[in-house]
């Protein structure tokens, strides 16, 4: 007997599936253990958060000119505000601050179109930012041509220096890392061993040693009196060091690409550079975005180590401020502020990486 089957209409979800109470029940108190942990977390938050907020915001002092203005119970942000110039620029002459500012604004201005969907020259603009812009920024910040007064790198400092160190480190270590990763997988034995030795060497020593060697030992190899810029030495040290880590991250991605992808691109007649550039690397890099950003974040925080070779990055400037005899005893404010600035940048990188992953997801299963 034929059954006449009608299509079932879509119904709204049952009421028990929605609403805050249901959500709390389902997610926080679904089982006994879950409930205990949720409660513990809530108690901990209630215990820690109010005093912290009180110290940092509600009882904090935001304006004034010296330590007499500070409120005893809260943070005294005047300490930071008084030195905000140094925190941002180090010992860069105040009347010339417009130069790094302009370089920064220019970078922001150039980057905006990259996020506009309908902008068609993203590749060209990207190349401009990576290849031409660094020279513009260098001429602006360092000066020495077009009538700009020279500001030697020894005067650079603060957040500006931190950003320069990490931006150059990031931009230079990624391509170097990619080349090393490809080299390590290469079939040419000599090339491969060079890459392996390089990676294992740099991964095996602490960054602090690298910086120390760059500042103390490197000059021994140069003729007396030749002054090899200290900042440049630090930059080279950081880049060489981080590229080894980057190489291993990228190699992980390369290994995850199925053999069929290599074969398909070969069979279509793509040569090695094209097949790497168009097929393998785009997939491999996308796969390891979390690892790459992880390395970037580590690099960003590692830049604080330059203080041991006498460069004044953000943290070193704060340290210096703490030794000011007028402002002794403001360690909490100093370090909380430094931690906050670092956290903001790292968190931004992390969020960006998540957004990027989502954007590049093309629905293929892995």
């Amino acid at each position, binding site marked *: 007997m034929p059954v006449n089957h009608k299509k079932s209409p879509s119904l709204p979800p049952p009421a028990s599936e929605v609403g805050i109470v249901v959500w709390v029940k389902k997610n926080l108190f679904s089982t006994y253990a879950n409930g205990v942990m949720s409660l513990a977390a809530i108690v901990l938050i209630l215990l820690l958060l109010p005093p912290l907020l009180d110290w940092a915001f509600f009882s904090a002092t935001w304006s004034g000119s010296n330590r007499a203005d500070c409120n005893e119970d809260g943070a005294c942000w005047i300490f930071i505000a008084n030195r905000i110039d140094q925190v941002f620029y180090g010992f860069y002459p105040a009347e010339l601050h417009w130069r790094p500012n302009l370089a920064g604004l220019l970078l922001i201005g150039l980057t905006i179109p990259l996020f506009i969907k309908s902008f068609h020259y993203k590749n060209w603009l990207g190349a401009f930012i990576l290849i031409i812009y660094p020279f513009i920024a260098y001429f602006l910040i360092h000066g020495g041509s077009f009538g700009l007064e020279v500001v030697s790198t020894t005067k650079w400092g603060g957040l500006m220096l931190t950003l320069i160190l990490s931006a150059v480190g990031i931009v230079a270590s990624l391509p170097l890392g990619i080349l090393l990763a490809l080299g390590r997988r290469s079939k040419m034995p000599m090339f491969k061993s060079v890459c392996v030795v390089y990676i294992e060497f740099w991964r095996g020593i602490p960054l602090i040693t690298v910086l120390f060697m760059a500042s103390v030992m490197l000059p021994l190899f140069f003729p007396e009196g030749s002054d090899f810029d200290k900042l440049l030495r630090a930059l080279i040290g950081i880049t060489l060091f981080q590229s080894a880590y980057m190489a291993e991250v990228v190699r992980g991605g390369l290994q995850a690409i199925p053999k069929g992808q290599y074969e398909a691109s070969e069979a*279509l*007649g793509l040569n090695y550079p094209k097949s790497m550039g168009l097929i393998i690397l785009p997939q491999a890099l996308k796969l390891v975005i979390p690892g790459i950003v992880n390395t970037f974040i580590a690099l960003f925080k590692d830049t604080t180590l330059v203080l041991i070779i006498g460069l004044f990055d953000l943290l070193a400037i704060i340290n210096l401020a703490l030794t000011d005899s007028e402002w002794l005893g403001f360690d909490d404010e100093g370090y909380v502020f430094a931690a906050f600035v670092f956290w903001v940048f790292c968190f931004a990188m992390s969020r960006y990486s998540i957004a990027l992953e989502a954007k590049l997801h093309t629905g293929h299963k892995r």
Partner: protein
Amino acid sequence: MSAEHIIELNGVHKWYGDFHVLKDINITVQKGERIVICGPSGSGKSTTIRCINHLEEHQQGQIIVDGTELTGDLKHIEQIRKEVGMVFQHFNLFPHLTILENLTLAPIWVKNVAKAEAEAIAMKYLERVKIPEQADKYPGQLSGGQQQRVAIARSLCMNPKVMLFDEPTSALDPEMISEVLDVMVELAEDGMTMICVTHEMGFAKKVANRVIFMDEGEIVEENEPNEFFNNPQNERTQLFLSQIIQH
């Protein structure tokens, strides 16, 4: 050596380490011929056709494709790969590119075809494999049968003289096999030179000029399909055929 021979394998040997995978393989293919290669798993079928576009390297003997001999010379390899298209068991589409980009990539980057023209060609072949409406999707959003048809179209966009198929339907669900085979039959009817590794005996009977049976790295038997299926000479062929017909 005749000019009509588009592919020639003369006494080809290959080893993986000590393991002798291909033993004295001789195959000649005329322009427009359709060859089906079958044989038990591990018999060297894939290895044989992968030597033809140098995905694998042979160590002895001669492989000549359209007058160009395959040696280690990169120029020759590039030349041959331009003329030989290949379709894989697992499709191997590029998951980070749309279907259209999958099809236009090689023409643009290998043959320097202008983008607009490459796209027009791509759409033509997508229509031919009956999925033009999928052009802007990503491979991960397509069914297996659709992906394999895209893979065929991707090879065709390079305008190859020869198409190699390595078990193009064996990773597909049964209901999708025929949609891929239909495309292959059409291709054969249009006069494409094809070498197919497949166990689809219906397909072999329908389009093949010759069937080659391989076992343990050797060509055991070679015949036109009717004779091959109805009157196999070698006992290994008989055993193999009896096994696949039981299924």
